[in-house]
């Protein structure tokens, strides 16, 4: 009985700690929250950097809060509900599934909390605007790069993240359209989904590459497979240095793979800009009462190959 009382006291104590840590945050100042697809992908940390920089510049509190498990729609919805309850000043979300979050976005808007989408859109919702890459165009650019490195003939496979993610599907659509328009004789062998899990991505690539010796190339719609050290990546490719890999994003590890010649091209997004612009746009909406002029704000893409990779690596110092 004594120990029971002690343990209840322990719970109370732990909670007091959380309460005190939360107290310092409790204030009437502006509080913007970014909700990424998950917080376990290094891609989002670049967005976080941009978010923090803008927060510092504008003097507002910012926070990154997302599901721990990747591609988890329910967790995002639960987080959004808590944010609505907390009545934060503004939210920017990259949805794991555009339909799953529509209801909660609309409810946030109804409660007077401005909501934007970034990186991946939820077009059917009442979100104010979308800040991110024009994923269809990015996909077409990836297609161009694939043709450039693979040639007029060959077999490729696609590795994607969550099959529900709108941004990834748009990239695939653009990629396929580009190949069709160029009228090349390349064949798509299969499309695999790693659900945003980097370990799973490498394993799937390894399995597929080993079982299909005629496979020439991979198109990876995100960075999960390519953010690995050289040894692990080469292993996944079954040591086939002749494979053509077209990937996405500009995380440091993948830039190093480009430098080493293992990845031929990366379509770089600008997550830092996205994070920054989200905070700036939300600030404009809340403080200056200014709505963005465009509903789709394109942050643009970069194409990184061995020729210009050094310039991007230097930004990571």
């Amino acid at each position: 009985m004594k120990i029971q009382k002690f343990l209840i006291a322990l719970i109370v104590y732990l909670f007091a700690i959380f309460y005190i840590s939360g107290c310092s945050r409790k204030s009437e100042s502006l509080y913007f929250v970014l909700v990424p697809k998950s917080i376990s992908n290094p891609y989002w940390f670049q967005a976080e950097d941009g978010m923090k920089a803008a927060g510092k510049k504008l003097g507002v509190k910012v926070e990154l809060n997302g599901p721990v498990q990747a591609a988890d729609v329910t967790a995002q919805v639960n987080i959004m509900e808590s944010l609505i309850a907390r009545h934060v000043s503004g939210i920017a979300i990259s949805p794991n599934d555009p339909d799953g979050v529509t209801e909660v976005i609309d409810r946030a808007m109804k409660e007077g909390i401005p909501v934007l989408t970034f990186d991946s859109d939820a077009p059917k919702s009442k979100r104010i605007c979308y800040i991110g890459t024009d994923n269809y165009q990015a996909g077409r650019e990836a297609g161009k790069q694939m043709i450039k490195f693979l040639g007029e003939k060959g077999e490729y496979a696609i590795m994607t993240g969550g099959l529900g993610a709108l941004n990834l599907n748009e990239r695939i659509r653009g990629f396929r359209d580009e190949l069709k328009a160029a009228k090349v004789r390349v064949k798509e062998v299969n499309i695999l989904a790693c659900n945003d899990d980097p370990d799973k991505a490498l394993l799937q690539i390894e399995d597929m590459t080993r079982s299909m010796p005629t496979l020439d190339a991979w198109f990876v719609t995100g960075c999960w497979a390519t953010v690995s050290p050289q040894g692990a990546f080469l292993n996944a490719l079954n040591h086939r240095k002749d494979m053509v890999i077209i990937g996405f994003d500009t995380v440091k590890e993948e830039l190093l793979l480009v430098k080493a010649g293992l990845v031929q091209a990366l379509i770089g997004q600008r997550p830092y800009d996205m994070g920054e612009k989200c905070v700036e746009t939300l600030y404009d909406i809340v403080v200056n009462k200014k709505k963005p002029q465009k509903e789709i704000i394109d942050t643009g893409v970069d194409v990184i190959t061995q020729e210009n990779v050094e310039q991007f690596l230097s930004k990571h110092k």
Partner: protein
Amino acid sequence: MVKFGVKFKSLGVFVALVIMVVFLALASPHFLTTDNVFSIIRSFSFVAIMAIGETLTIITAGIDLSVGSILGLSGCLSAIALHAGWPVFATILVGLLSGTVIGFLNGELITRLRLPPFIVTLGMLSMARGLAYVVTRGWPVSGLPQNFMQLGQGYIWIVPIPVLFMIGFAILASIFLNKVVIGRQLYAIGGNEEASRLSGVPVNKVKVIAYTISGFAAALAGVLLIARLGVAQSVAGQGYELDAIAASVIGGTSLMGGEGTVSGVIIGAAIMGVLRNGLVLLGVSAFWQQFALGAIIVVAVALDSLRK
């Protein structure tokens, strides 16, 4: 009289819940609003429903690890049926039936082949999840009709409909465990299986019923969840079996079997839901949430074992 006796056993966790609520109410003016409170209750209602089913199996000194996958599969099947234009009632039936059948299979494998529940339901976890991938080919299924989504997003007066399902299911389960012979026999089996068998309890039949209800509960949660989100994912429910077990254990269910109450389970699910909401409300880093939830489970189990 029975209800009061039941709550008395779970007094410890109820007090812990009240303390958490008081703290959060003081820390954030946004906590004790009707909107937020019902929002939290709705968010944990899915786990609560699963946990009630799970508890039946744990009371028999067994366990059901397949509930998360059943949730995913039932959601996917219902969504596919809806997409194919089936009437809403039929699609709900399809979803519920899938979970019930899998639960029944679990029970049969465990009793007829005398396999450990852990292994059987672990295997079923993969099989059911695999089936969910097969029927959807990995793609999420959305575009569900508005009238179906009312099940998950609608309200009756100010109470969200999933919450009403949770309350209804809890009442039925409580009556089952306290007033129905088979329900009471679950405790006997968990307490001492051999003695129960010798005193004439149809042990195998009762166990199968427990696992069947567990499967049904998971399927019910699955159907309600896709109605809530408006989309069915093949990965939905991954890891939820741990949440269901945690809610059950926090609520006073003993993993050794023979003990457990429905009200305890609801309080356990409530503690987890309030904690999740509270941590976001307080601005605690998302990384610490996992740690906090795990810590609560350890503390609860420690409390439970020390009580003996």
